[in-house]
């Protein structure tokens, strides 16, 4: 919970991690990838305020105490959603698995939601694992990486018939939310991993599932925006958007936020800190204080008020995950401007 100027914000961090990328977890022979990967993540942290930067040693493997302090005690978060990333070709125990997240989270009942993952290339065995994970961890969401290498394959798309099998199975198992990584390259690729057209297909064919595009397709937000504006069940996951831009590039941040508000709208944007890349505290506090800078270059964009910020920081994700939000956090009932009201103003 965060309170500012008499307004209370219920906060759902819908995209965060608990990883081990320390050398003790590197796969022999793949050390350069394991090292390169976490150093790349660490560089992203440098885009946040200087007093929030960690040493590379802490960044490789932060503790349970670090996480609880940074996310809950000081970070204003009420409920956090673990989004796993396996990368088992580089990290012996995996980088950030459902098991690792749950083992830690189970000591803190009621504070975490455990998403799991699947990969259509794992076939029947993958379906069985998915079912077991949903039963064991109560997962209502999955995190997908379409650009991930696997045994010589360099990625997959949500259009693949195999992927449809998994989407159908997800739905049968009660999964509602499909978080898809479409953003900075997660893994070296030859396919165009930024391509969001596969989400377009799946969102149309699975209208009862929600597709949350994490990192909003950066570096190609234009493709994401054109797609999302046509699909009612596609959401903009703000992980990386706030962390990488709000502090380091305030003018570009304002424009990216403006575009998302214009094309997608405040009802379909969700906050995610991407912890441990960035701590949630400065992101939430900064976002609540944020407004468009003065200047004509921002005049095309819809404004964002307190109600919109409440939705983005928690209420939208609470709806996706059926989280009961105490009455004190409910919006005053002001309906936001609908997407159709957005017009291209041209001063």
């Amino acid at each position: 919970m965060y309170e500012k100027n008499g307004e209370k914000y219920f906060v759902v961090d819908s995209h965060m991690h608990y990883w081990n990328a320390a050398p003790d977890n590197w796969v022999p022979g793949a050390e350069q990838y394991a090292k390169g990967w976490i150093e790349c993540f660490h560089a992203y942290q440098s885009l946040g305020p200087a007093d929030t930067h960690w040493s590379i040693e802490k960044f490789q493997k932060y503790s349970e105490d670090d996480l609880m302090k940074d996310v809950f005690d000081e970070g204003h978060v009420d409920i956090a959603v673990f989004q796993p990333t396996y990368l088992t070709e580089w990290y012996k125990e995996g980088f950030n698995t459902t098991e690792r997240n749950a083992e830690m989270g189970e000591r803190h009942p009621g504070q975490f939601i455990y998403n799991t993952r699947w990969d259509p290339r794992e076939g029947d065995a993958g379906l069985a694992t998915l079912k077991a994970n949903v039963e064991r961890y109560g997962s209502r969401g999955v995190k997908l990486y379409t650009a991930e290498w696997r045994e010589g394959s360099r990625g997959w798309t949500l259009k693949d018939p195999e992927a449809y099998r998994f989407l159908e199975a997800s739905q049968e198992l009660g999964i509602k939310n499909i978080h898809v990584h479409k953003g900075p390259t997660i893994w070296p690729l030859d396919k165009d991993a930024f391509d969001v057209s596969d989400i377009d297909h799946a969102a149309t064919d699975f209208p009862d599932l929600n597709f949350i595009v994490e990192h909003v397709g950066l570096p190609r937000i234009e493709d994401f925006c054109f797609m999302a504006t046509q699909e009612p069940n596609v959401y903009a996951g703000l992980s990386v958007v706030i962390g990488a831009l709000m502090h380091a590039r305030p003018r570009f941040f304002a424009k990216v936020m403006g575009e998302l508000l214009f094309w997608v709208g405040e009802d379909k944007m969700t906050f995610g800190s991407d912890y441990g890349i960035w701590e949630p505290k400065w992101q939430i506090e900064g976002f609540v204080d944020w407004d468009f800078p003065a200047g004509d270059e921002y005049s095309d964009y819809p404004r964002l008020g307190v109600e919109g910020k409440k939705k983005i920081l928690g209420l939208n994700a609470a709806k996706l995950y059926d989280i009961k939000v105490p009455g004190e956090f409910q919006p005053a009932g002001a309906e936001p401007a609908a997407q159709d009201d957005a017009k291209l103003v041209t001063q």
Partner: protein
Amino acid sequence: MTERSRVLAALDAVRDPELDEPITTLGFVSECIVSAAGDARVRLRLPTYFCAPNFAFLMVADAYDVVSALPEVRSADVALEGHFASAEINAGVAARAGFAVSFAGEAVGELDELRRTFLTKAVLAGTDQVCRPLLAAGLDPAALTTMTLADTPPSAQLDRLCRRRAELGLRTDPAAPLLVDPGTGAPITGTAVSMHLGRARVSRVGIEANTGICRGMLRHRYPTTGAGEEEDEG
């Protein structure tokens, strides 16, 4: 002009295909040395170890091409450092092999389509750069649909837009329409102008935001300024 500055000037013509900016001003050239005998040594660097290898390959191959084409250069040694695919990329470029050959069994084809994709975005972003000042000065958006390139006030942004259009094979003669669909070359007419300007605007925002992130990452990774690097405004 020294040999080194001529090589750097040549490298100004090499763009990051995604950011549509020269690799020199982005800070991607870490080293540029030319011996008296005309042996050029160029080293490139990127913001992360995991930048997409297809973009990286394009930049290294283009850099090799422009440097080795200079009459005063006897030999060109151009290489990328600190990247997970440095070895394959450098070997492929040195052997003048294409991307698909360098990544045998991995790459799904050559990169021309990728270049086209980004040029299309560059044309859209350039359209915003040219049109925004006109609209800010009070021009009605509908008026843009009847303007030709000759009607458009001259500017560096317009020159750049025309260069990108030419690369895509789009018309750049004085009578050509200012607003065209970058995919088909068809003029933008009637009510389609709003959507077109919206696409142009968000394309420019995407490129600018991405450039900002790349610059920030590069600065974290390499404390030294690149050869020909320019300070950006964030």
